[in-house]
């Protein structure tokens, strides 16, 4: 059953990435300026050379052939060349991916630690003022644009990972708090409290089994949120990661680079969501 589930996720992942790649290829193919090449403006080129350039591009007119060529090249490790940076896309990704992974990973750890810590302490303490204060703090962060948080992190010399954590934290906190509040309000947990069970025992024996599948699903979604948050944080904090690369590609209309980034980000978020789903399935047991 587990193998079947993983295989199904794999198929869905492949289909989604192929479809996502195709949609990006459509956007690239039909974007204004696709058919023009600034090399044609070179006065040193003869009319034959210009005709040869146009013929070389003509094969990409059909969107399906264009996409098939892109996939074929990608299968051989050639992701094309960035128009704005003049470097191979694969090399750019290899250079910049480690920083983004570090930022996103650390940001997720920090945001989850803060959100779980606050939500659990609110559920344990059961002091309305504490709950209201933590909800207010998360509410303020929720109302701030991610880019403003990135700018403030520059202003206060905060590390980029902390800015990502502050962007992801309110979303995780709100969901976790509501989930834990619902779980702690269940009759059998009230009974356990009345019988004098310790909070730690109640948490691990009664609350975690109820909340874990949904928390795992949230973990997948939060990974997608963190990847999205990496764009303004890296762009505005001057961090040379994939987020900054995406922003530079957008400003320079570097469409081949954006197409590859779209596929990469789709793949990363789908893997995060599928892993969370499979982990949730394992936790619930195969009978679920």
């Amino acid at each position, binding site marked *: 059953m587990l193998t079947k589930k993983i295989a199904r996720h794999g198929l869905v992942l492949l289909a*989604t990435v192929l*479809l*996502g790649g195709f*949609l*990006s290829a459509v*956007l*690239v193919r039909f*974007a*204004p*300026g696709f058919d023009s090449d600034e090399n044609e403006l070179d006065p040193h080129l003869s009319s034959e050379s210009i005709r040869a350039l146009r013929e070389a591009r003509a094969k990409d007119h059909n969107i399906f052939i264009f996409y098939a060529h892109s996939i074929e090249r990608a299968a051989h490790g050639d992701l094309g060349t960035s128009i704005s940076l003049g470097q191979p896309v694969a090399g750019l990704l290899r250079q910049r991916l480690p920083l983004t992974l570090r930022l996103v990973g650390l940001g997720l750890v920090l945001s989850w630690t803060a959100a779980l810590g606050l939500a659990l302490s609110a559920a344990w303490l059961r002091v*309305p*003022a504490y709950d*209201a204060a933590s909800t207010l703090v998360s*509410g*303020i962060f*929720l*109302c*701030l*644009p*991610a*880019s*403003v948080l990135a*700018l403030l992190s520059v*202003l206060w010399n905060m590390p980029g990972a902390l800015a990502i954590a502050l962007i992801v934290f309110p979303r995780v906190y709100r969901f976790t708090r509501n989930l834990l509040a619902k779980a702690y309000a269940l009759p059998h947990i009230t009974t356990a409290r009345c019988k004098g069970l310790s909070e730690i025992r109640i948490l691990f024996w009664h609350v975690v089994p109820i909340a874990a599948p949904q928390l795992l699903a949230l973990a997948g979604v939060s990974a*997608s*949120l963190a*990847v*999205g*948050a990496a*764009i*303004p944080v890296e*762009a*505005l904090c001057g961090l040379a990661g994939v987020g900054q690369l*995406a*922003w530079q*590609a*957008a*400003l320079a*209309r*570097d*469409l081949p680079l*954006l197409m590859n*980034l*779209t596929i990469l*980000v*789709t793949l990363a*978020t*789908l893997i995060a*969501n599928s892993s969370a789903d499979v982990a949730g399935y394992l936790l619930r047991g195969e009978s679920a």
Partner: protein
Amino acid sequence: MTSIPGNVWQRVAAVVLFLVIGASVAANWLAPAGYARQYREAADAPPSHEHWLGTDEIGRDRFARVLYGTRISLLLAPAAALLSTLMAAVIGGIPGYLGGNWARCAMAVTNLFLSLPWLFLLIAVRAVLPLNVSPLVSVLVTFLMLGLLGWSNAARVLCTSAENLRSSDFVRQARAAGISPARLFWIHVAPNLKPVLEAQFWISIPVFILTEANLGILGLGVAEPMPSWGSLLKELEGLVSVGEEPWKFVPLVLLVLVVTSFQTLLSQREELSA
């Protein structure tokens, strides 16, 4: 500690929204010189009687720009929300009602859109469109893009709601009584989807306000000289400390107030519908 009743906060939120919307509507009277006029002798000036929030680096009155920017953001975010809700109704609601493969296809397309981080999707699509367009076109492009791409969450909710309605007892009974599919949809299904559509519309407004701000700060939103909250917040980029020029934070305070007010009113709607 005496807690303040929820409805007091909701009244405060309504008053804040009323005042902000009112001020933005009255921008022509409150700042008749307009948002683009340059006072070159007073560039980058601090607040004064002539310029309540000072001027920007090319001498434009910041108060006027905040008012006009608020108008643009608050007029077009609901317009984009309306468009995205309609898109969600078509992409999620109708296939959900039809069920079967239609619903599966709709969910697959929705999942594809949801698998990409929202901001990444926006900048990817924005990059495909020309960047050197007139300010008015940039406003339309920004908010059209928000409306055309921001439907996925709402579509998923609508698809599920429509599927639930489809298999509900009263719809089955109506179908068994021989009602035509079109009449069944318009008389029984659509009115029951209306509250979901309304909720999705209101939820989308603060999301689009924040997204426009993000795009503006990244230089991919509304083009100069047209002001919007995003382009106004871009000024924060050059600040060295918060206390240095606190008046530059006015657009941010305004944005947070408006988004908080929307969230507060939304929570009231949720309480009422619960």
